[in-house]
């Protein structure tokens, strides 16, 4: 190669490396969302609304940004696994979907950094903060610092297939059990009228992951007047409430077969419960907003074309009236999922620009067109959705949240294990609770636990 040619090559190479960063930035977003699959509306929203809108906005500022969406099709737990391993090696998407309850353990493990530490002062001057309440901010915060932005928050309730209730002579429109006994009686009546059905679904088992703790265990234990932790934040490891909760599971899945035991034990169990509800085999299913507005949305995989006519909902009753958490008659629990910034992102400014664009008023309003939900911004209206509006009044004031504690997700895994050993019929409630106690003490230390028996 002649010297002149070599110089030319060198010059070209230098020029390209200097030009590229100024003009082209590649960003990746990952979420557990697949067009036509799980969270289809989120994927569609990002692809049809966020990405074109954001690249256009960036172009207007003279920046050439390309955004690609990584559609993760696995389970929640596998997504957590992926993110933990990605973040620990400095790899992964720039903006990642994230469940708020995992933030403490990720932060303590050094896998997440506060938004302003990642992206600088642009974060603090964002216009959106004044439209987000402190409560909504705390969904993705830890130690007073924001690590991400929640897309919205939710509540949990019992979803009801009307025609199954009617088949047992119950009136779906006035259906509201006032105690566990009434709930079980309704399930028994439906089972009697439809012996092949599994009328009641209260999530249990390891395979459903956090959905077991949130939609199943929490909804029951709150009804006993207790929670996972006591008022001092200590984990309750032995109590009458835990025993009553486990006995409720035993009644549903072991003693009376009111629920689909196999669905609690199999790897794809949660989807099986959705199928049961869609196919009219399950009449009463305890789930969150997401189930109503995404899973069951007309046209979705487990959708019901006539959802609003075929499905209604009821509040989850306490064990007995007035015996619930804080003396309530009905109980519910809330969580929040949203998006975080990868602390190792190579383009923090653009990544924040994307995250804040996703959470702009315009963008979240557009999202309501794909999936209706409670958004965290006060300038994005809750849509004209009867379910959301009614539960906003009835359940939102009653709600509570999971402990914002780095050990919570490990304890939660033990809760899932405890329920599984009961619903599979392998352990008595007392034995399962004893195993839970030993496991939780091993995780948090005896000083951070409390035994009430």
């Amino acid at each position, binding site marked *: 190669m002649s010297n002149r040619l070599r110089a030319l090559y060198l010059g070209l190479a230098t020029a390209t490396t200097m030009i590229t960063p100024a003009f082209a930035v590649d960003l990746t977003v990952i979420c557990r969302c697949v067009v036509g699959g799980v969270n289809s509306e989120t994927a569609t929203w990002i692809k049809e609304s966020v990405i074109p809108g954001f690249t256009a906005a960036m172009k207007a500022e003279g920046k050439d940004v390309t955004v690609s969406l990584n559609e993760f099709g696995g389970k929640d*737990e596998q997504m957590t*696994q992926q993110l*933990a*391993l990605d973040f*620990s090696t400095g790899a992964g998407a720039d903006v990642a979907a994230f469940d708020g309850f*995992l933030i403490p*353990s*990720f932060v*303590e*493990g*050094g*896998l997440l950094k506060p938004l302003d530490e990642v992206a600088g002062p642009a974060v603090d001057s964002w216009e959106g903060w004044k439209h987000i309440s402190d409560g909504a901010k705390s969904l993705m915060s830890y130690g007073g610092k924001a690590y991400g932005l929640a897309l919205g928050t939710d509540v949990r309730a019992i979803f009801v297939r009307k025609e199954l209730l009617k088949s047992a002579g119950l009136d779906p429109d006035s259906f509201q059990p006032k105690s566990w006994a009434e709930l079980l009686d309704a399930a028994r009546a439906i089972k009697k009228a439809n012996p092949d059905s599994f009328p009641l679904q209260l999530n249990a088992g*390891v*395979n459903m992951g956090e959905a077991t703790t949130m939609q199943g265990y929490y909804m029951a234990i709150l009804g006993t007047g207790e929670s996972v932790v006591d008022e001092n934040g200590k984990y309750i490891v032995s109590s009458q409430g835990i025993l009553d909760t486990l006995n409720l599971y035993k009644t549903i899945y072991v003693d009376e077969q009111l629920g689909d035991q*196999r669905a609690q*034990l*199999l*790897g794809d169990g949660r989807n099986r419960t959705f199928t049961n509800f869609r196919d009219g085999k399950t009449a009463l299913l305890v789930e969150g907003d997401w189930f109503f507005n995404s899973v069951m949305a007309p046209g979705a995989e487990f959708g019901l074309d006539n959802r609003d006519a075929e499905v209604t909902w009821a509040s989850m009753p306490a064990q007995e009236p007035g015996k619930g958490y804080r003396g309530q008659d009905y109980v519910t629990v809330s969580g929040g999922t949203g998006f975080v910034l990868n602390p190792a992102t190579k383009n923090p400014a653009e990544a924040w620009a994307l995250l804040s664009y996703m959470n702009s008023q315009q963008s979240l309003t557009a999202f309501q067109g794909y999936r209706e939900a409670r958004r965290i911004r006060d300038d994005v209206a809750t849509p004209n959705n009867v379910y959301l509006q009614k539960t906003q009044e009835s359940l939102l004031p009653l709600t509570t949240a999971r402990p914002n504690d*780095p*050990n919570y*997700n*490990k304890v939660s*895994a033990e809760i899932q*294990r405890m329920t*599984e*050993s009961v619903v*599979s019929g*392998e352990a008595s409630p007392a034995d399962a609770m004893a*195993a839970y106690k*030993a496991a939780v003490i*091993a995780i948090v230390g005896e000083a951070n636990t409390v035994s009430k028996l």
Partner: protein
Amino acid sequence: MKKKNFSLLSHRAGAAFLAPAAALVGVFVLLPFFWVIVVSFTNRTLLGKTALNPEFVGLANYFQLFDPATFFTRGQFGFSLILTTQFVLLSALVGQALLGLLLAWLMQTIPPALKRIVETAVIAAWILPEVVIGFAWFAFLDYDNGTLNMILRGLGLPAGDFLLQQPFWVIVIFNTWRGAAFSMMLFNSAFASIPPSYFQAADVAGASSWQKFRDIGLPLIRGHVVTDLILSTMWTFNVFTPFILTNGGPSYRTELLSIYNYRIAFREFDFGKGAAVGVIIMLINLVFALIYLSFGRKKAKAVEE
């Protein structure tokens, strides 16, 4: 007889050629090996406070694994260890080796064309990738849409919920099916190495097939039998594919040691305890490997003499 050393290259040149390979082995095998041992003495995790500031905990992880209070509890180390031992005994020793031996012996008597067809079928089960096989078996045994249950229902028989009701026997049969091909091939070539005149002489004397097997076949392939037993034991001990069938469940009933190790280290992110399990698995494998090597050495010595 003393072996004579001769060399194509000088020692220095030989070392130079070996260096790149040695460096790779060092970085990707030896270093992680010692790193795992170091981590097993700490409480390192991926999430939570001990991710950034792991503490040296001495043998605490090992004591925890062997804690007599929980040792035999399902989902604990001891349960997995015992389960894995049963799995090896039933699926590797009884299943793979015995079935392979039987197949290989029967193959000696059938016409060559048929023999080739059987060989192809058995080897096909062996060369397919693990994941493909795993999903094929899952699809075969599934309760709602599985092929086996469709056949059973078609015949008017009750369907079986095999993956939930009999998960241990499912993975035993699966692993037997999977590994019998290797044993069969090994024994097949071992039998082929026996001079046919031995069997012809036995035929003239009017020996039955069982007598030929007991008095001629088996004694002459004894060395191959030991090799086969050790290799299939090691493979079965470390196998992970049953995870695709049962996820280690239901309720840890099929949680082999390899699956237990994966759960502790990469689903619960408890690196310290996971590393301790890894170290124990390595030690067990080391014992197998030493037996295998010492046997190989004995055989080599016998050949030299």
